[in-house]
């Protein structure tokens, strides 16, 4: 973590969706999609948010972007509290934060040309028309597209080219932070590495910070400085990428890593059989103690009752596991 003010600091973020039931629509509970997540992203840094579908990683990203309402916690951008700011100020702050979604087909308006798609944020920001065309040309070149692509429609492009358009649009207003929500998951293998390389090159050239939301841990390992592993709305483990991949401490992190099939038959078949059973429990009805207790192969006597806190692992990372880290005991 950088010593200076981080670009983004998220403290104890909560996103609870109310559950209503019955004839009167009275509140019967809440889905705790994000339940106390903290993280920091320094300038030029890539932090990955990983976990299975339903763990709350995309909801956390959406809350940072203001696409869903945070119900608790603080989001500080360059030290300024976004949630406490007025609507005008919020909009200004969020101009520095852009997003790249998974599916470039649905992210682009099929009735706009590529040039119009990329210019849209510039129009909204009130940039003069003459300046827009020059900026669009600049952005096309930056993401490896040709000037001639500006007049084409999204359906005339390949999946990889469309994702480049989405990236160009995200860069239009010169943001400092880009939230990448599964940016390469929908792409073919040979295109995936092109886009990963583009994201790394743009980061080096423009000093961008990324919050990289993904489930593909081999890509995450490749591009991230730090990794936050989420489980059922909470952080199970977080720390520098090497610490997490070389010394996973939480049994869930271990299970996630063990589940990745290695692209090497000898190594893959030599691995012990995969042990993690069952699915993610419903976030509307999470276990009282450790969220992972229902699937954990190592659960101890206290795990069902006590909710562990993040504790140092001795490898520069922190994990929330009562069995492996005595200091994770709450209190």
């Amino acid at each position, binding site marked *: 973590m950088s010593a200076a003010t981080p670009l983004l600091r998220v403290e104890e973020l909560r996103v609870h969706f109310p559950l209503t039931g019955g004839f009167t629509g009275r509140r019967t509970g809440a889905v705790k999609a994000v339940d106390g997540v903290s993280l920091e992203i320094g300038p030029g840094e890539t932090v990955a948010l990983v976990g*299975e*579908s339903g763990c709350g990683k995309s909801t956390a990203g959406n809350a940072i972007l203001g696409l869903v309402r945070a119900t608790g916690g603080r989001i500080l951008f360059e030290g300024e509290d976004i949630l406490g700011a007025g609507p005008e100020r919020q909009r200004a702050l969020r101009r520095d934060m852009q997003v790249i979604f998974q599916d470039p087909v649905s992210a682009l308006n099929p009735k706009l040309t590529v040039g119009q798609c990329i210019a849209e944020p510039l129009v909204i920001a009130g940039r003069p028309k003459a300046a827009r065309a020059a900026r669009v040309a600049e952005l096309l070149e930056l993401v490896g597209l040709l000037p001639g692509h500006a007049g084409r429609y999204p359906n005339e492009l*390949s*999946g*990889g*080219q469309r994702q480049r358009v989405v990236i160009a649009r995200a860069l239009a207003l010169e943001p400092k932070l880009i939230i990448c929500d599964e940016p390469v998951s929908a792409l*073919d*293998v*040979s*295109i*995936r*590495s*092109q886009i*990963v*390389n583009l994201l*790394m*090159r743009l980061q080096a050239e423009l000093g961008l910070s990324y919050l990289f939301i993904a*489930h593909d*841990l*081999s*890509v995450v*390992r*490749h*591009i991230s400085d730090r990794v936050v592993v989420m489980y059922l709305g909470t952080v199970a483990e977080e720390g520098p*990428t*090497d610490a997490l*991949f070389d010394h996973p401490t939480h049994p869930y992190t271990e*299970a*996630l*890593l*063990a*589940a*990745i*099939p*290695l*692209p*090497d*038959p*000898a*190594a*893959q*078949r030599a691995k012990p*059989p*995969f042990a*993690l*059973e069952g*699915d*993610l429990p419903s976030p509307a009805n999470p276990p009282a103690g450790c969220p992972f207790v229902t699937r954990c192969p190592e659960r101890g006597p206290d795990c069902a009752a006590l909710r562990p806190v993040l504790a140092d692992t001795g490898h520069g990372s922190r994990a929330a596991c009562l069995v492996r880290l005595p200091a994770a005991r709450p209190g």
Partner: protein
Amino acid sequence: MSDPAAPVLSVRDLVTRIGGNAVVDGVSFDVAPGEVVALVGESGSGKSLTALSVMGLLPAAARAAAGSVRLEGEELLSAPERRLRRIRGQSLSMIFQEPVASLNPLMRVGEQVAESLVVHGRAGRAEAQARAVEMLARVGIPDPAARARQYPAELSGGMCQRVMIACALISEPRLLIADEPTTALDVTIQAQILTLMKRLRADFGTAILIITHDMGVVADIADRVCVMYGGRIVETGTAEEIFARPSHPYTRLLLSTIPRLSGARKELLRSIEGSVPDVSDWPEGCRFRSRCPLAQEDCAQVPPHVPVAGQPGHTAACLHLERIGEMT
């Protein structure tokens, strides 16, 4: 059937057309009893259309125009639809990528698993139901009797894929075709499903044709691999050989683009220039030559499959195999 070593499935020179384009263009491969063969490729490679041709489930716009598909010696391409239905319910089963979309949302899962036994008159309703519950237990569904009475929407994606597998295996087919069976699932659930498929292959002796784009899945489950590009198989061999000695430039590049869980990070990844061309833009001759770093003028001829030196059963369709070492 009498020869235990005879292939369960034998595909020869299969050509499948959509309009004027041969989207599957001369594909040949065998699947031996109990063997797992992977068809690997990116979107547009023709791998799924090859599988759909085998099953006789091509979309209306496509048709298998030439070649032969034999299941236990019986030609399927010219078989009447009535016969195909019978085969699909008994000796050939399939599972698809989207388990939730493939199940009938209005039917209890136990009935869906039992359905093929009832429809094909192989068991009465009560017996089929009992066998369905037993099958749900074998695919690892806890409390199978209670689950059998539930609807797909009440189950998770991983559970639905287990139900799909139960539906596919209850008729004890000779061949299971699995089209991207784990692509829509989380990596932890994928590992569970692959473990299950390997166990069921051992228990039932079912041969599996798996369609995937994920080299990790191939490394985990496949005995043999057919790498597809542009409607053709460009390289085939055992999984060990394909990963240890990838010999077609496409296979070699494809493997080198995958980020690893060990070694250097934050470096530029190897990538393949350009993108998979649309079928209407496929080049003459070798389909990969528009993106291949080794391409020369003679690549405008269709390359035949040639054996890769010293490796039985390992062939690649490249005129310049001897230059593969130039690619680092």
